């Protein structure tokens, strides 16, 4: 379980997160929606300790992410993350991209790591791309590669940070399909997205973030179909 209590975060004088409370249950899929600059991505970065925080607390399986005694490298092994920029390692083949972390972080043997990598790549539909370099693949393929790379660490949680925002429209579907598969398999997911359709169809709950606070949270049928706050109404009107 991920528990976020009163989370505050600033960049210089700018307070980006102003007291976020959120509890993510095992197997739950939560979509986080809201305008650009509302702090959604920062929230994800705080959860796996890529950003430090200035108030509140985040617990992942009862481990305080920002406590000085916490082994962040170990904690991150169970929190997979996929970014807006695909961030595939350009000097490695697809297979090597996925096998790297299992080998050097989890200490698997080379052959074990390659087995894991192959399985994950097949899983995301890249079974025919083992030896391709990222530069030889489309954005959608690279993003699926990034998902496979995160999954190869066998995480308990997956964080998705606007993973379709940089994609050409015709490539968005293949990435969303991969995420649907993952949600069907019971993965706990926190998804920052502008894909309202995906949020509506796949999430258990949707959180609408406005200026550093969760203004509204609940099942898609209420937050997306029937938003109460004025901000959420206005924001969602853009997607009709």
């Amino acid at each position, binding site marked *: 379980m991920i528990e976020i209590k009163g989370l505050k975060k600033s960049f210089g004088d700018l307070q980006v997160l102003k007291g976020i409370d959120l509890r993510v249950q095992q197997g739950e899929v939560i979509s986080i929606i809201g305008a650009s600059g509302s702090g959604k991505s920062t929230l994800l*970065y705080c959860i*796996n300790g*890529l950003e430090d925080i200035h108030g509140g607390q985040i617990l992942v399986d009862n481990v305080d992410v920002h406590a000085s005694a916490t082994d962040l*490298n*170990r904690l*991150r*092994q169970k*929190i*997979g*993350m996929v*970014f*807006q*920029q695909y*961030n595939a*390692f*350009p*000097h490695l083949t697809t297979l090597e991209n996925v096998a*790297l*972390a299992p080998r*050097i*972080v*989890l200490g698997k043997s080379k052959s074990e790591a390659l087995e894991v990598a192959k399985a994950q790549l097949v899983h995301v539909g890249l079974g025919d791309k083992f030896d391709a*370099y*990222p*530069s030889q693949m489309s954005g959608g393929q690279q993003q699926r590669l*990034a998902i496979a*790379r*995160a999954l190869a*660490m066998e995480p308990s949680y997956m964080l998705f940070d606007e993973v379709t925002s940089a994609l050409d429209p015709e490539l968005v579907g293949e990435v969303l399909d991969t995420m649907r598969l993952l949600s069907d398999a019971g993965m706990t997911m926190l998804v920052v997205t502008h894909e309202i359709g995906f949020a509506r169809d796949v999430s258990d709950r949707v959180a609408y973030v406005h200026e550093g606070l969760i203004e509204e949270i609940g099942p898609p049928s209420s937050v997306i179909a029937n938003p109460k706050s004025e901000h959420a109404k206005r924001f969602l009107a853009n997607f009709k």
Partner: protein
Amino acid sequence: MENSAPTSIAFFTGFKVSDLLFLGEAALRTLLISVIAITSGSLLGILFGWLLAEFNRYLTSGLNLVLDIFRSVPLIIQLILLYNFFPIVGIPLSPFVAGTIVLTVYTASLVAQVVRGGVEAVSLPMRRAARSLGMTYFQDIRYVVFPIGLRAVLPAWTGVALGVLKDSALVSVLGYIELLRASQILVTRTQEPFIILAIVGGFYFILSYPIARITDRLEKRWQYD
């Protein structure tokens, strides 16, 4: 008396085959001082470049200033200053040692900027992706930053290495008999500057060519786009 010495001394004698050996030996000295300077200077430069790229600008401003000085002062001035400074404080240096130290620091000051550029060529999101997989800082450096950065800066590093190889000729002012100094000696004796400088130029080319070729080949092998 008449048989003990020639009546006239020949000041100038023509270029002989044995002179080629003399030049070859000098080329080895050029190679030696260059290889030491480029290797140790590059290692130092990697350390300095990493510090410059990864640590707070204020913390590294002193290092940056020192490196800037070594980058900007002409090599020949650095050589003469260092070579003459150490005997003053009671530690006489051989031309070889003085030359090696100056060339090494000079190389390091150039490589540091190259390496800084290489580290900064790896985007922050890329590095966050590596860390999000649970990699430690040094795993990120070793498996992500180093290989990507190395590919990005290899051409620039090659330029530095070739430059230092040629600049090693300046150590001749200290009396170290490397290629240029050897050629001056031979020119004085033979009065045939054209042929000797042509040969010495050939030697420099033979020394430089492999560096250019090897890095060229590495670049092609590492190409991934």
